Protein backbone atom coordinates (compact mmCIF):
# COMPACT_ATOMS: atom_id res chain seq x y z
CA UNK A 1 0.00 0.00 0.00
CA UNK A 2 2.80 2.36 0.95
CA UNK A 3 4.62 1.33 -2.22
CA UNK A 4 1.57 2.25 -4.30
CA UNK A 5 1.34 5.67 -2.72
CA UNK A 6 5.06 6.35 -3.05
CA UNK A 7 4.95 5.16 -6.64
CA UNK A 8 2.01 7.37 -7.46
CA UNK A 9 3.63 10.41 -5.83
CA UNK A 10 6.86 9.83 -7.72
CA UNK A 11 5.03 9.34 -10.99
CA UNK A 12 3.07 12.56 -10.55
CA UNK A 13 6.25 14.45 -9.63
CA UNK A 14 7.95 13.13 -12.75
CA UNK A 15 4.93 14.05 -14.84
CA UNK A 16 5.06 17.63 -13.60
CA UNK A 17 8.80 17.78 -14.25
CA UNK A 18 8.33 16.46 -17.76
CA UNK A 19 5.34 18.54 -18.73
CA UNK A 20 6.60 21.83 -17.28
CA UNK A 21 8.50 22.94 -20.40
CA UNK A 22 5.27 22.77 -22.38
CA UNK A 23 3.88 25.68 -20.37
CA UNK A 24 6.76 27.88 -21.48
CA UNK A 25 6.25 30.08 -24.47
CA UNK A 26 6.60 28.21 -27.73
CA UNK A 27 10.18 28.84 -28.75
CA UNK A 28 11.86 27.74 -31.91
CA UNK A 29 14.63 25.20 -31.66
CA UNK A 30 17.85 27.01 -32.21
CA UNK A 31 21.50 26.46 -31.99
CA UNK A 32 22.71 27.51 -28.59
CA UNK A 33 26.38 27.41 -29.26
CA UNK A 34 28.12 28.16 -26.05
CA UNK A 35 30.43 25.18 -25.83
CA UNK A 36 33.29 24.48 -28.15
CA UNK A 37 32.23 23.21 -31.51
CA UNK A 38 31.97 19.47 -31.46
CA UNK A 39 34.50 18.51 -34.08
CA UNK A 40 36.69 20.46 -36.38
CA UNK A 41 37.68 19.02 -39.68
CA UNK A 42 41.40 18.96 -39.69
CA UNK A 43 42.90 22.40 -40.03
CA UNK A 44 45.70 22.93 -42.51
CA UNK A 45 47.89 24.05 -39.62
CA UNK A 46 47.41 20.74 -37.84
CA UNK A 47 48.13 18.99 -41.10
CA UNK A 48 51.32 21.02 -41.48
CA UNK A 49 52.39 20.13 -37.98
CA UNK A 50 51.87 16.47 -38.74
CA UNK A 51 53.77 16.82 -41.99
CA UNK A 52 56.71 18.36 -40.16
CA UNK A 53 56.66 15.54 -37.64
CA UNK A 54 56.39 12.84 -40.29
CA UNK A 55 59.37 14.36 -42.02
CA UNK A 56 61.33 14.47 -38.78
CA UNK A 57 60.64 10.78 -38.20
CA UNK A 58 61.75 10.04 -41.73
CA UNK A 59 58.36 8.98 -43.02
CA UNK A 60 58.16 11.65 -45.70
CA UNK A 61 60.80 11.89 -48.37
CA UNK A 62 62.05 15.37 -49.22
CA UNK A 63 60.06 15.45 -52.46
CA UNK A 64 56.84 14.42 -50.78
CA UNK A 65 57.51 16.84 -47.98
CA UNK A 66 58.07 19.73 -50.36
CA UNK A 67 54.91 18.97 -52.31
CA UNK A 68 52.75 18.59 -49.23
CA UNK A 69 54.28 21.60 -47.54
CA UNK A 70 53.50 23.77 -50.57
CA UNK A 71 49.90 22.59 -50.79
CA UNK A 72 49.15 22.91 -47.10
CA UNK A 73 50.97 26.19 -46.63
CA UNK A 74 48.68 27.61 -49.29
CA UNK A 75 45.62 26.23 -47.52
CA UNK A 76 46.89 27.50 -44.18
CA UNK A 77 47.38 30.99 -45.59
CA UNK A 78 43.95 30.91 -47.15
CA UNK A 79 42.61 29.75 -43.82
CA UNK A 80 44.29 32.63 -42.05
CA UNK A 81 43.06 35.23 -44.46
CA UNK A 82 39.56 33.91 -44.63
CA UNK A 83 39.60 34.06 -40.86
CA UNK A 84 40.34 37.75 -41.24
CA UNK A 85 37.61 37.96 -43.82
CA UNK A 86 35.28 36.69 -41.15
CA UNK A 87 36.58 39.09 -38.63
CA UNK A 88 35.80 41.97 -40.96
CA UNK A 89 32.19 41.00 -40.91
CA UNK A 90 32.12 40.28 -37.21
CA UNK A 91 34.38 42.91 -35.80
CA UNK A 92 32.93 45.80 -33.89
CA UNK A 93 35.96 47.95 -34.63
CA UNK A 94 36.02 48.20 -38.38
CA UNK A 95 38.82 50.70 -38.70
CA UNK A 96 41.16 48.22 -37.08
CA UNK A 97 40.11 45.25 -39.06
CA UNK A 98 40.55 46.77 -42.46
CA UNK A 99 43.34 46.05 -44.73
CA UNK A 100 46.84 46.43 -43.34
CA UNK A 101 47.64 42.80 -43.93
CA UNK A 102 46.15 42.78 -47.39
CA UNK A 103 48.09 45.87 -48.26
CA UNK A 104 51.13 44.09 -47.02
CA UNK A 105 50.68 40.91 -48.93
CA UNK A 106 48.35 41.77 -51.74
CA UNK A 107 45.51 39.34 -51.69
CA UNK A 108 44.46 39.66 -55.27
CA UNK A 109 41.78 37.38 -56.62
CA UNK A 110 43.97 36.57 -59.60
CA UNK A 111 46.69 35.08 -57.49
CA UNK A 112 44.64 32.19 -56.17
CA UNK A 113 42.67 29.65 -58.04
CA UNK A 114 39.05 30.46 -58.82
CA UNK A 115 37.59 27.98 -56.36
CA UNK A 116 39.45 29.46 -53.44
CA UNK A 117 38.58 32.96 -54.53
CA UNK A 118 34.92 31.93 -54.57
CA UNK A 119 35.23 30.56 -51.07
CA UNK A 120 36.75 33.80 -49.88
CA UNK A 121 34.08 35.88 -51.58
CA UNK A 122 31.45 33.73 -49.97
CA UNK A 123 33.04 34.10 -46.57
CA UNK A 124 33.24 37.84 -46.99
CA UNK A 125 29.53 38.25 -47.58
CA UNK A 126 28.44 35.65 -45.10
CA UNK A 127 26.54 37.10 -42.19
CA UNK A 128 26.68 36.18 -38.60
CA UNK A 129 24.13 36.63 -35.85
CA UNK A 130 25.39 37.94 -32.52
CA UNK A 131 23.31 35.40 -30.66
CA UNK A 132 23.12 32.37 -32.89
CA UNK A 133 26.41 32.48 -34.74
CA UNK A 134 27.09 32.43 -38.48
CA UNK A 135 24.11 31.78 -40.73
CA UNK A 136 24.21 29.10 -43.35
CA UNK A 137 22.14 31.01 -45.93
CA UNK A 138 23.91 33.14 -48.50
CA UNK A 139 23.39 36.82 -47.84
CA UNK A 140 20.58 36.78 -45.24
CA UNK A 141 19.19 40.00 -43.84
CA UNK A 142 17.76 38.52 -40.66
CA UNK A 143 18.81 35.60 -38.51
CA UNK A 144 17.00 32.50 -39.70
CA UNK A 145 16.97 31.20 -36.17
CA UNK A 146 16.07 34.04 -33.82
CA UNK A 147 14.97 36.63 -36.31
CA UNK A 148 17.43 39.31 -35.23
CA UNK A 149 18.72 41.78 -37.81
CA UNK A 150 22.14 40.77 -39.06
CA UNK A 151 24.89 43.30 -39.28
CA UNK A 152 26.56 43.39 -42.63
CA UNK A 153 29.81 44.69 -43.99
CA UNK A 154 30.40 47.18 -46.75
CA UNK A 155 31.83 45.42 -49.78
CA UNK A 156 34.02 48.41 -50.57
CA UNK A 157 35.55 49.50 -47.26
CA UNK A 158 34.57 46.67 -44.92
CA UNK A 159 32.81 48.87 -42.38
CA UNK A 160 30.04 47.30 -40.34
CA UNK A 161 26.53 48.13 -41.49
CA UNK A 162 24.36 47.91 -38.40
CA UNK A 163 21.24 49.87 -39.34
CA UNK A 164 18.48 47.72 -40.80
CA UNK A 165 17.73 48.27 -44.49
CA UNK A 166 20.67 50.63 -45.12
CA UNK A 167 21.12 51.54 -48.75
CA UNK A 168 24.46 53.29 -48.41
CA UNK A 169 27.59 52.69 -46.39
CA UNK A 170 27.88 55.18 -43.53
CA UNK A 171 31.66 55.07 -43.75
CA UNK A 172 32.52 55.48 -47.41
CA UNK A 173 29.13 56.22 -48.93
CA UNK A 174 29.14 53.53 -51.56
CA UNK A 175 25.89 51.84 -52.55
CA UNK A 176 25.13 48.58 -50.79
CA UNK A 177 23.76 45.49 -52.49
CA UNK A 178 20.15 44.72 -51.60
Amino acid at each position, binding site marked *: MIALVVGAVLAVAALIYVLLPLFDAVTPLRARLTGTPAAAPESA*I*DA*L*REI*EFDRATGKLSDDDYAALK*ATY*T*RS*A*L*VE*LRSRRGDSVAESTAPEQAVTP*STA*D*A*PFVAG*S*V*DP*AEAAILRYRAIRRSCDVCGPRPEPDPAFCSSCGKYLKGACATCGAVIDAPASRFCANCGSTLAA
Partner: protein
Amino acid sequence: MVTRRRFVITLGGAVVAVATQAARGQQGAETPGATMEGDGYIPVRRPPRAGAAKRLTPLERDAVERMLSCPCPCTLDVFTCRTSMPCGFSPRLHADVVKLVDGGYSADEILAAFEQAYGEKILMAPHKQGFNWVGWLAPFAAVGGGAFAAGALIRRWGRRAAERRMAASPVPIEASDDEMARLEAAIRSDDP
Protein backbone atom coordinates in the same frame (compact mmCIF):
# COMPACT_ATOMS: atom_id res chain seq x y z
CA MET B 1 20.33 9.72 -55.37
CA VAL B 2 17.53 7.43 -54.30
CA THR B 3 14.17 9.06 -54.02
CA ARG B 4 11.67 8.13 -51.36
CA ARG B 5 9.39 6.58 -53.95
CA ARG B 6 12.06 4.40 -55.45
CA PHE B 7 13.10 3.18 -52.03
CA VAL B 8 9.56 2.16 -51.15
CA ILE B 9 9.05 0.39 -54.49
CA THR B 10 12.31 -1.55 -54.18
CA LEU B 11 11.55 -2.47 -50.60
CA GLY B 12 8.04 -3.61 -51.51
CA GLY B 13 9.40 -5.82 -54.27
CA ALA B 14 11.88 -7.40 -51.91
CA VAL B 15 9.22 -8.05 -49.28
CA VAL B 16 6.94 -9.74 -51.82
CA ALA B 17 9.81 -11.90 -53.10
CA VAL B 18 10.84 -12.97 -49.60
CA ALA B 19 7.24 -13.63 -48.59
CA THR B 20 6.61 -15.91 -51.58
CA GLN B 21 9.87 -17.73 -50.93
CA ALA B 22 8.95 -18.19 -47.28
CA ALA B 23 5.47 -19.42 -48.18
CA ARG B 24 6.97 -21.94 -50.56
CA GLY B 25 9.51 -23.04 -47.98
CA GLN B 26 6.79 -23.48 -45.36
CA GLN B 27 4.98 -26.16 -47.38
CA GLY B 28 8.01 -28.39 -47.80
CA ALA B 29 9.41 -27.94 -44.33
CA GLU B 30 6.87 -30.05 -42.45
CA THR B 31 8.17 -33.60 -42.81
CA PRO B 32 11.94 -33.90 -42.39
CA GLY B 33 12.22 -32.13 -39.04
CA ALA B 34 10.71 -35.18 -37.32
CA THR B 35 14.05 -36.69 -36.32
CA MET B 36 14.59 -33.99 -33.70
CA GLU B 37 11.39 -35.05 -31.92
CA GLY B 38 11.90 -36.83 -28.62
CA ASP B 39 15.44 -37.43 -27.51
CA GLY B 40 17.41 -37.12 -30.72
CA TYR B 41 20.11 -39.51 -29.50
CA ILE B 42 20.96 -42.21 -32.02
CA PRO B 43 23.18 -45.05 -30.81
CA VAL B 44 26.20 -45.60 -33.04
CA ARG B 45 27.36 -49.16 -32.45
CA ARG B 46 29.57 -51.41 -34.57
CA PRO B 47 30.66 -54.95 -33.76
CA PRO B 48 34.28 -54.96 -32.66
CA ARG B 49 36.78 -55.91 -35.31
CA ALA B 50 38.23 -59.40 -35.17
CA GLY B 51 41.34 -59.24 -33.05
CA ALA B 52 40.52 -55.64 -32.30
CA ALA B 53 43.25 -53.50 -30.88
CA LYS B 54 42.88 -49.84 -30.00
CA ARG B 55 44.21 -47.71 -32.81
CA LEU B 56 43.71 -44.39 -31.11
CA THR B 57 45.29 -42.95 -28.00
CA PRO B 58 42.98 -41.08 -25.62
CA LEU B 59 44.26 -37.79 -27.05
CA GLU B 60 43.51 -38.88 -30.59
CA ARG B 61 40.10 -40.02 -29.44
CA ASP B 62 39.48 -36.55 -28.04
CA ALA B 63 40.52 -35.10 -31.38
CA VAL B 64 37.78 -37.22 -32.98
CA GLU B 65 35.29 -35.93 -30.42
CA ARG B 66 36.28 -32.40 -31.27
CA MET B 67 35.15 -33.10 -34.83
CA LEU B 68 31.71 -34.22 -33.67
CA SER B 69 29.05 -31.73 -32.68
CA CYS B 70 26.94 -32.38 -29.62
CA PRO B 71 23.27 -32.78 -30.56
CA CYS B 72 22.22 -30.77 -27.50
CA PRO B 73 21.57 -27.05 -27.98
CA CYS B 74 25.00 -26.10 -26.60
CA THR B 75 26.51 -25.66 -30.11
CA LEU B 76 29.78 -27.11 -28.79
CA ASP B 77 31.66 -30.18 -29.91
CA VAL B 78 31.28 -33.41 -27.96
CA PHE B 79 34.63 -33.10 -26.21
CA THR B 80 34.16 -29.49 -25.13
CA CYS B 81 30.60 -30.14 -24.07
CA ARG B 82 31.35 -33.17 -21.94
CA THR B 83 34.35 -31.55 -20.29
CA SER B 84 32.76 -28.19 -19.60
CA MET B 85 29.00 -28.17 -19.24
CA PRO B 86 27.90 -31.76 -19.62
CA CYS B 87 24.43 -32.29 -21.04
CA GLY B 88 22.38 -35.44 -21.56
CA PHE B 89 24.02 -36.15 -24.90
CA SER B 90 27.76 -35.74 -24.87
CA PRO B 91 28.47 -38.45 -22.26
CA ARG B 92 26.44 -40.95 -24.31
CA LEU B 93 28.18 -39.97 -27.53
CA HIS B 94 31.47 -40.20 -25.71
CA ALA B 95 30.59 -43.73 -24.61
CA ASP B 96 29.80 -44.65 -28.22
CA VAL B 97 33.12 -43.24 -29.37
CA VAL B 98 34.99 -45.12 -26.65
CA LYS B 99 33.31 -48.40 -27.71
CA LEU B 100 34.23 -47.82 -31.33
CA VAL B 101 37.81 -47.04 -30.38
CA ASP B 102 37.93 -50.19 -28.31
CA GLY B 103 36.48 -52.03 -31.29
CA GLY B 104 39.53 -51.09 -33.31
CA TYR B 105 38.03 -48.47 -35.62
CA SER B 106 40.07 -45.63 -37.03
CA ALA B 107 39.24 -41.94 -36.68
CA ASP B 108 37.83 -41.64 -40.19
CA GLU B 109 35.71 -44.76 -39.74
CA ILE B 110 34.27 -43.43 -36.50
CA LEU B 111 33.42 -40.11 -38.09
CA ALA B 112 31.83 -41.89 -41.04
CA ALA B 113 29.77 -44.06 -38.71
CA PHE B 114 28.46 -41.02 -36.87
CA GLU B 115 27.73 -39.21 -40.10
CA GLN B 116 25.78 -42.23 -41.33
CA ALA B 117 23.63 -42.18 -38.21
CA TYR B 118 23.08 -38.46 -37.71
CA GLY B 119 23.77 -36.96 -41.13
CA GLU B 120 26.35 -34.35 -42.03
CA LYS B 121 25.07 -32.16 -39.21
CA ILE B 122 27.04 -34.19 -36.66
CA LEU B 123 30.36 -33.03 -38.12
CA MET B 124 31.69 -29.77 -36.72
CA ALA B 125 32.51 -28.50 -40.19
CA PRO B 126 30.94 -29.46 -43.50
CA HIS B 127 32.89 -31.57 -46.00
CA LYS B 128 34.79 -29.57 -48.54
CA GLN B 129 32.71 -30.66 -51.50
CA GLY B 130 29.90 -29.48 -53.75
CA PHE B 131 27.82 -26.60 -52.48
CA ASN B 132 29.80 -26.46 -49.25
CA TRP B 133 32.63 -24.85 -51.17
CA VAL B 134 30.45 -21.74 -51.24
CA GLY B 135 30.57 -21.72 -47.48
CA TRP B 136 34.31 -22.29 -47.27
CA LEU B 137 35.30 -19.81 -49.92
CA ALA B 138 32.82 -16.95 -49.48
CA PRO B 139 34.86 -15.20 -46.74
CA PHE B 140 37.99 -15.24 -48.87
CA ALA B 141 36.00 -14.14 -51.91
CA ALA B 142 34.53 -11.30 -49.84
CA VAL B 143 37.91 -10.11 -48.60
CA GLY B 144 39.42 -10.49 -52.06
CA GLY B 145 36.53 -8.63 -53.65
CA GLY B 146 36.69 -5.97 -50.94
CA ALA B 147 40.42 -5.52 -51.45
CA PHE B 148 39.90 -5.25 -55.19
CA ALA B 149 37.14 -2.67 -54.70
CA ALA B 150 39.31 -0.72 -52.28
CA GLY B 151 42.14 -0.76 -54.79
CA ALA B 152 39.86 0.49 -57.55
CA LEU B 153 38.50 3.18 -55.25
CA ILE B 154 41.97 4.36 -54.31
CA ARG B 155 43.01 4.44 -57.94
CA ARG B 156 39.92 6.47 -58.87
CA TRP B 157 40.52 8.92 -56.05
CA GLY B 158 44.16 9.24 -57.06
CA ARG B 159 43.20 9.90 -60.68
CA ARG B 160 40.61 12.48 -59.75
CA ALA B 161 43.05 14.22 -57.46
CA ALA B 162 45.66 14.26 -60.22
CA GLU B 163 43.15 15.76 -62.65
CA ARG B 164 42.27 18.40 -60.15
CA ARG B 165 45.90 19.24 -59.60
CA MET B 166 46.35 19.62 -63.34
CA ALA B 167 43.27 21.81 -63.63
CA ALA B 168 44.12 24.10 -60.75
CA SER B 169 47.00 26.29 -61.77
CA PRO B 170 49.53 26.01 -59.00
CA VAL B 171 50.12 29.70 -58.58
CA PRO B 172 51.82 30.20 -55.23
CA ILE B 173 50.26 32.64 -52.83
CA GLU B 174 52.42 35.57 -52.04
CA ALA B 175 52.86 35.84 -48.33
CA SER B 176 54.69 38.44 -46.32
CA ASP B 177 57.65 37.36 -44.25
CA ASP B 178 55.70 38.19 -41.17
CA GLU B 179 52.82 35.94 -42.18
CA MET B 180 55.20 33.10 -42.88
CA ALA B 181 56.93 33.63 -39.56
CA ARG B 182 53.68 33.40 -37.67
CA LEU B 183 52.57 30.37 -39.63
CA GLU B 184 55.86 28.75 -38.78
CA ALA B 185 55.40 29.62 -35.10
CA ALA B 186 51.93 28.10 -35.09
CA ILE B 187 53.25 24.90 -36.65
CA ARG B 188 56.18 24.64 -34.29
CA SER B 189 54.05 25.39 -31.26
CA ASP B 190 54.15 22.27 -29.17
CA ASP B 191 50.62 22.34 -27.83
CA PRO B 192 48.37 20.48 -30.19
